[in-house]
């Protein structure tokens, strides 16, 4: 039981990092980046491929952060001109492209089977010590994101979200702000990806598919967009709702279907009846 609890806490810690990283472009800048899961995957794969080749975890972690940041920069390039529905479509496409790469570049990614036998970093092989490490990193990420969104930079992002024309006429570099928020978000999710890979110790393309980005989106929408505490609370709620489903002992197919139905319905209900989520400031407009 204690082992299970530590497992869930570690997973939740990693996913709270993901929720915080996702809140920056979606909640604060108002860009629905559906490629976030592809970035998450890239961080996980980069770190996993490096450490299974004998590179140290710490170096792999840095590589995952920087590599994902760079990929996030490429994904952010169209955000200078494209926003709204079209940006969502482009980034959805990015998720497909990344998925194709993971499935088909078999020499490097081992295709549909994914990468197995990922060892935890030395000194942190015990579940409890790994949890402690993840918590420390989460704390650092949380402090960083908190300071970022409450800084003039964070307020400029919100101005871009609320009205990009007004922000532009006030001299805000709208395109650069959009890009910066996406790159910062990518770096953080790259770190989270490296942690996920080394925690669950195997990864495959299935873990990083579209339903999971909408699952993460549901967390930050339920918690409230453009709310730091909301992103954390939303993810905690998602774990509280979805972990107990495991104990229903349903066949895996049905469990997957039930999970999809519950979180998409929940997301829909929040958008329709409480668009601010639990503690969001921004109207979903």
């Amino acid at each position, binding site marked *: 039981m204690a082992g299970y609890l530590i497992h869930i806490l570690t997973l939740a810690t990693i996913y709270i990092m993901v929720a915080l990283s996702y809140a920056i472009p*979606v909640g604060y800048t108002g860009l629905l980046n559906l490629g976030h899961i592809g970035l998450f995957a890239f961080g996980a794969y980069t770190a996993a491929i490096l450490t299974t080749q004998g590179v140290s975890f710490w170096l792999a972690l840095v590589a995952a952060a920087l590599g994902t940041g760079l990929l996030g920069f490429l994904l952010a390039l169209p955000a200078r001109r*494209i926003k709204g529905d079209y940006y969502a*479509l482009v980034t959805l496409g990015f998720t*497909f492209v990344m998925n194709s790469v993971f499935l088909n570049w078999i020499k490097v990614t081992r295709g549909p089977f994914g990468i197995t036998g990922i060892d935890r970093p030395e000194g942190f092989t015990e579940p409890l010590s790994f949890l402690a490490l993840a918590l420390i990193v989460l704390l650092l990420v949380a402090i960083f994101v908190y300071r970022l969104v409450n800084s003039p930079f964070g307020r400029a992002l919100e101005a871009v979200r609320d009205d990009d024309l007004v922000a532009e006429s006030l001299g805000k570099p709208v395109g650069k702000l959009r890009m910066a928020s996406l790159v910062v978000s990518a770096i953080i999710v790259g770190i989270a990806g490296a942690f996920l890979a080394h925690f669950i110790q195997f990864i495959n393309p299935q873990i990083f598919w579209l339903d999971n980005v909408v699952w993460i989106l549901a967390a930050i929408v339920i918690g409230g967009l453009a709310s730091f505490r909301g992103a954390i609370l939303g993810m905690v709620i998602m774990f509280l709702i979805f972990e107990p489903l495991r104990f229903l002992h349903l066949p895996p197919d049905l469990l997957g279907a039930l999970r999809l139905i519950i979180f998409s319905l929940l997301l829909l209900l929040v*958008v329709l009846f409480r668009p601010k989520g639990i503690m969001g400031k921004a109207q*979903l407009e």
Partner: protein
Amino acid sequence: MNLHSAHSVRQNRVNGMDIILQILANGILTASLYALLAGGLSFLYSTTKIFHLAHGVVAVGASYAFWWLWIDLNSHPIVALIFAVLVAALAGFLMNELVYERLRRHGTKGLAYLIATLALLLLGIGIILALFGAAPKTFGLHTEVVTLGEINLTVLQIWIVIITAGLLGIFFWITKYTKFGKAMRATADNEIVAEVLGINTLKIRRLAFILVSVLAAAAGIANGLEFSLDPNRAVILAVFGFAGAVIGGVGNFGGAILASILMGFLEQGTVWFLGGGWRNAFIFILLFAFLLFKPEGLFGSKRVL
């Protein structure tokens, strides 16, 4: 099936011209599916400004309804077909009525619609998974192969192309020449002016959703007959439909169809030269290039961004 026939042609060491013809023949089939979706979505987006990604699950849902009645319950295929079209029309209508219209009444725009349509898409996939399971289903249809020179096509494929052309023609006629179609285009042009002129835009939106959902049903059923039933196809069909609409120039019905044909050919070309696994990636790189360098699409007159 496409891939297989392509392979056998390759083994016969036929000349390059025949390969190109076979790619074109295979491409016209996928192009038909995309055209049914892209044409509808292009029209829907210009009329309602809703980025209806859940369109994909309307299409796939119709194909499951068709399969359920025809194969599982052994009904007459015509009965199953009518049922499937009704299911799609009802699904599209309800999505608009219960979700999009509600958001519209609350004056929301942008992000909320996108999140809602994503939720609808996954909700639909979840329901299909719960009812039918994840294992792909097939119709087990064996139709004759027609050989024209070195090109192989099945009778089914020929019928799909003919029916698609017919449906798109009817749809075009409705939107171009009927009073209702003119009202729709007026709504697309300027909703407020249309309302001032006495057009009931709510009714127009309802009808638009029903019409494009019927096209989606055709696409879904054709997709199911030609390939197999798979809930995850819903996402791909929706996104390819939008890709066609964007590349063709949003709001340009003919453009969407030409773009779909182009996409069908390029996709088959990709399958031929790089293998089936890369087909999705290729279309997105094309879409990416268009949005970056030619966001008004191939034939769009209005700037969309």
